[in-house]
């Protein structure tokens, strides 16, 4: 692996076919190796589009994305993704779900076995390896999904609102778990969420995005020692800051939209 940042997004933008407004204006940012970065914002702010571009599942209209020193043209082994609804393969056992990416990359069987077991141990699920996804709780499924990504030993871990479908308790537990796992494995992480406290708690850097059109409106650095505590006053303060900024943005967006509606109504 060469030096330089884990990820460099340069002027990437996207407008979807059946929309008159850009889903994402030209956006640039950088993620250092081992850095935890969150993209936060209301729905429609382009954070999932941005993540899709980094994953190589969505092509930007212009601009470029460079991951681990290589331009992104499609999915790559260096980047692993965790989806909102876990997106596990229901017909495979937990073990085989985690093994899937290794099979796709033709990793030899013995090595696959070892790496899958390590990954499952990391998320504390080595005892349910032979179960099927539908036999697990939502939180366990999401942990399998994290193991499925980590088993690829990614330089960059991409997470698309991974905890948003979970109940509050499970969510808190998993957020803690994720911090621990990240401290043990230290990939660069791009974490998409609309939960401000979650973002502040986990991240080194938080990019706040706004909608209509989607863009980064402010960037926060969270310089707190780890492991962190969710009740840390600095976190709460940061959350307040972000919330205020977001309120102003959303209000502005609503006003702009109302203006457009008036114009088109004429």
């Amino acid at each position, binding site marked *: 692996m060469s030096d330089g940042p884990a990820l460099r997004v340069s002027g990437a933008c996207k407008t979807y076919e059946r929309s008159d407004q850009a889903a994402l204006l030209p956006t640039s940012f950088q993620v250092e190796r081992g850095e935890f970065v969150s993209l936060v914002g209301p729905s429609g702010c382009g954070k999932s589009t941005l993540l899709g571009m980094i994953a190589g599942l969505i092509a930007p209209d212009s601009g470029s994305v460079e991951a681990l020193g290589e331009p992104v043209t499609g999915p790559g082994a260096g980047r692993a993704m965790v989806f909102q609804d876990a997106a596990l*393969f229901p017909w495979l056992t937990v073990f085989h779900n985690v093994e899937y*990416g290794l099979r796709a990359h033709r990793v030899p069987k013995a090595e696959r076995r070892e790496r899958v077991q390590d990954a499952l141990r990391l998320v504390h699920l080595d005892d349910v390896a032979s179960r*099927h996804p539908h036999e697990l709780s939502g939180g366990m499924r999401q942990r399998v999904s994290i193991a499925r990504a980590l088993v690829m030993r990614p330089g960059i871990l991409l997470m698309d609102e991974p905890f948003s479908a979970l109940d509050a308790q499970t969510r808190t537990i998993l957020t803690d778990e994720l911090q621990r796992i990240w401290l043990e494995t230290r990939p660069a992480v791009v974490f998409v969420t609309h939960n401000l406290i979650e973002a502040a708690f986990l991240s080194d850097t938080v990019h706040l995005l706004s909608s209509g059109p989607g863009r980064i409106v402010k960037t926060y650095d969270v310089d707190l020692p780890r492991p962190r505590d969710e009740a840390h006053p600095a976190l709460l303060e940061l959350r307040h800051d972000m919330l205020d900024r977001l309120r102003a943005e959303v209000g502005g967006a609503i006003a702009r939209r109302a203006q457009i509606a008036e114009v088109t109504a004429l």
Partner: protein
Amino acid sequence: MSAAGGGGTGSAGRLTRASHRARALALEVFRKGWFVTLVLLVWWLITAAGWVDPYKLPAPGDVLSTLGTLFTERALMSDLGATLLRLVEGWAIGVVAGVLLGLLTGGSRTLEDGIRPVIAGLQSVPTIAFLPLAILWFGFSGTAVLAVTAFGTFKPMALATYGAMHQVSPTLLMAGRALGARGLFMQRTLMFPAIVPSLVTGLKMGWSFAWRALMAAEIIVTGAAGLGGVLELGREIGAIDVVMAVILVILVVGIVTEQLFFTRLERWVNRRWGLVGAR
């Protein structure tokens, strides 16, 4: 029915449970059997009253005894065996070919857009229309019948495969792609298992299409043994009891395969794929 009518004091619990089970069983037998019983009763009544000439509608008992005679004297068992073998073979070939075509071409827009409308169009042509062609290619024999049966299954299976592939959750496909699955590996390890639950429904449909094509072809190519030939024999010698006996056999085979095979398969797939409540 209620075996535990009185019920001793000591073993009342067990007896009640037994009587519950007996009642549940009786209820199930009634639920599944009342219509058949009713039809048989009305059928018997009409023939016994002499309202209809027996050569137009033979009595249920006569059809049953004809069925017995067919088994003992005409070796209907070998006809049934030949038909079932052909059915299973034709169906299996059609299923494999249809699913393979769907999987191999469904990955590409161009391939699918070119092929799918043609198969959909062919689906409106009765399969039996291809029998003369099959006879020229495969000879005037069971092979031609088998080919027509396989083709009759192939068309709906290919369409069902295309349809099922469009139903697969995009997130699941995205997850697979993000993990590095591509091309044939993707179709084999992700697309195929993902469509299995919807394919089970397609399998049943394919089975009924196979039956249709097979019977129509067997009636025409009667050289080889088969139920269709017996059906045609009954028609030709004006023996409606033979025709009804064969229909009865086909009906029973249909019920048995549905209950013993398809229902179980469906249940297994639903459990394995977590489609029934995760209990």
